[in-house]
């Protein structure tokens, strides 16, 4: 078995050399496909992290119609909590809201002192339960809060996450389509390269059949050739992604906290990188298997 394996590997390497520029094109196409797929995957993973982290930070602001008396604050909070799905509540009085406004105005804080009266309403900051901290769950909570009699208006933090989630879905869809198109092109190129090699190898294949080689031994080199092309391509794709990551992250990371609320961008994990390599090897193997060429004997 070891001898035959050695024979298959040697013949596959010989075929790779014979494939020449077409073989190289196949490798580059698979690399391109995997780089696109990997890039979309990377971005999608980080978007997903941003969406997941949102669940810890979201705040819904419930503006009250009137500021309750100190003794009635707990009653109001209980009525709000009764809608369900709430992890934490924090009451913000009109005075505290004005103080927060002055802090945000900074050196312009004395503008607020010119106001004849405090126009800011009392409010309750609501943190949803982790279990419902999704755009859909938040929307439902906002709807329930709006029915509480004490409530004037509810402002939720879900709109931008809705947009982010939709963008992520669109992104994933586009990435899959582009990746699939490139993958098909890559498979077809590997198939073409392998078919060319089979044509060049037809004399050898004829001899192999005449002397009693099994079909497995005859076909194995083209499978190995395809896998080798896919493996090399996957490594190239991974390297390209690493380089793009190293170049882009220093420029992107300062913007992430204020845009999507993400502190840092992570790269593919070792397991994910292995999955990418596996996908490349599989693409190459498919291309090799699909090649048709047969010496008659």
């Amino acid at each position, binding site marked *: 078995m070891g001898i035959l394996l050695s024979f298959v590997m040697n013949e596959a390497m010989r075929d790779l050399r014979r494939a020449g520029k077409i073989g190289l094109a196949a490798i580059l196409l698979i690399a391109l496909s995997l780089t696109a797929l990997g890039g979309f995957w990377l971005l999608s993973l980080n978007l997903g992290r941003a969406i997941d982290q949102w669940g810890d930070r979201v705040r819904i602001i419930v503006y009250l119609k009137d500021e309750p008396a100190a003794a009635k604050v707990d009653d109001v909070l209980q009525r709000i909590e009764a809608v369900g799905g709430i992890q934490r509540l924090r009451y913000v009085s009109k005075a505290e809201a004005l103080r927060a406004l002055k802090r945000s105005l900074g050196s312009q804080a004395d503008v607020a002192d010119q106001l004849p009266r405090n126009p800011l309403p009392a409010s309750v900051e609501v943190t949803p339960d982790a279990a419902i901290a999704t755009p859909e769950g938040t929307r439902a909570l906002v709807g329930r809060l709006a029915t509480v009699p004490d409530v004037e208006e509810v402002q939720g933090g879900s709109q931008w996450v809705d947009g982010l989630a939709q963008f992520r879905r669109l992104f994933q869809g586009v990435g899959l389509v582009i990746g699939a198109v490139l993958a098909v092109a890559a498979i077809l190129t590997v198939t073409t390269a392998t078919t060319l090699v089979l044509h060049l190898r037809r004399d050898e294949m004829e001899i192999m059949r005449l002397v*009693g080689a099994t079909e497995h031994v005859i076909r194995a080199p083209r499978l190995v050739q395809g896998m080798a092309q896919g493996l090399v391509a996957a490594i190239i794709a991974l390297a390209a992604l690493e380089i793009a990551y190293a170049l882009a992250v220093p420029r992107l990371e300062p913007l992430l906290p204020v845009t999507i609320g993400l502190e840092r961008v992570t790269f593919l994990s070792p397991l994910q990188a292995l999955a990418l390599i596996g996908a490349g090897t599989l693409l190459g193997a498919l291309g090799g298997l699909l090649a048709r060429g047969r010496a008659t004997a």
Partner: protein
Amino acid sequence: MIRLQHVSMVFGAGPSRVAALSDVSFHIGKGEFVVLTGASGAGKTTLLRLLYRAESPSEGDIDVAGFDVSALRRSEIPRLRRSIGIVFQDAKLLAGRTVFENVAFVLRVLGTARRDITPKAFAALKAVGLSARAQAYPHQLSQGEAQRASLARAIVKSPGLLLADEATGNLDEEMANEILGLVKDIWSRGTTVLFATHQARLVPQLKRRTLRLEGGRLVKDEG
């Protein structure tokens, strides 16, 4: 070693139907040297192709080296062919490999142990007198040398049966006699030989049992 019973081979259908072989029966025992003769188109190559299952007979039974060839499953054909060495009119050497590599290729493809490949390949080359040309490439060989290399490749796996299909067809008389001599040597070591040729002058030279085909029919079996 070889038994054919009422074997026919028909190609095509309707107006384009061609009977390449019609009701051919014969038996060749182990260790025999038999000449298969007939004009071009008589059915010699078709008969040989049936023996190594490059074709399936339209009718009849074929037994080769214990294999029921006519009923052989596709997956079993490699086993049959491992017991047969085949030499063609065209040497069919692999251009990108040396003479030694061409012969060793057979052993590598069949999974021969690495330590046995070189001695066996050189033994085969020695048997056909090509040891000195082991590192030459096919384009550097004469026709006679190329045919000897082809013979070495056919016998390197020590087959019980050697089929030669017009092995001297492309050679001049001197080279043809050389090849014939080598084939006889191979036969003398116990290999059964079926030697197909359209060259009538070789038949009396060989002084062997002769099967003659005409129009796909076996018209003579003598010797």
